[in-house]
């Protein structure tokens, strides 16, 4: 998979490395900015209040 991406990137090894880094940063950005904030409330890690079991709908 990563080998396939590497082979399809243009330029020499340095250019490819640079592009790879940028792609990786974009992925991290998308995860931190959109995916994790969306996923976090769905996971049972950070409910701090006492409630009647209605936390999911609040």
């Amino acid at each position, binding site marked *: *998979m*990563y*080998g396939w991406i590497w082979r399809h990137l243009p330029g020499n090894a340095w250019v490819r490395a640079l592009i790879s880094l940028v792609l990786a940063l974009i992925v*991290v950005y998308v*995860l*931190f900015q959109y995916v*994790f904030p969306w*996923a*976090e*409330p769905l996971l*049972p*890690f*950070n*409910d*701090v*209040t*006492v*409630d*009647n*079991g209605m936390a999911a709908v*609040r």
Partner: protein
Amino acid sequence: MSTSKPSGRRRAASVISVIGELLITGGLVLALFVVYSLWWTNVLADRHAAKASQKVRQQWAQDGGGNNGTPALGLDTKDGIGFLHVPAMGRNYQVLVKKGTSTKVLNEGVAGYYTDPTPAAMPWDKTGNFTLAAHRDGHGAKFHNINKIHTGDAVVFESKDTWYVYKVYKVLDQTSKYDVAVTDQVPKESGRTKPGRYITLTTCTPVYTSRYRYVVWGELVRTQKVDAQRTPPPELR
């Protein structure tokens, strides 16, 4: 790997290598999620809370110091009603208190007072329970060190014009998350049976999970007017 002649063996190898790469990627994403939860949300929440706190303090300063004669209670439910100080959680520990315990409010790195299922009483009410919740981890992690609070410790709420000094009298280090009775106006679970002026802090426990709730109860010892310099009460010095 050259693509000359994809024999069955080679095909299987490449499928396995893709699966392996996906597994590694999944592991990395999970690791990133931990970094996100325990570090990045704190960065965002602390930034947000610092700004919000500053705004409240500026507002108070504009309205003119503490004892200007008017019984201003500092009840501004949008920006926050005041600050909670807990010396046991750090010398300069303070957290802005806002209305509500929804995820949206608590994720701003503040403590929220309950509106549901039992609405909190305000510290200036004659009797009642001032019930608060905040995150144990991530999003500011304002109650991360709640386990450092012990019986007899001071918990101080600072409103615009008054310091409310509470003394912790009971700690419940584990209870069900459905134990809404801990936020009752007379918290019987803490051993009190008469109406009084109580404060209740709730968060999740053990750390990094939400399996149980940790509860700290205190009751009002005294109040002190805020002076022009906002001199903190002796408990905070």
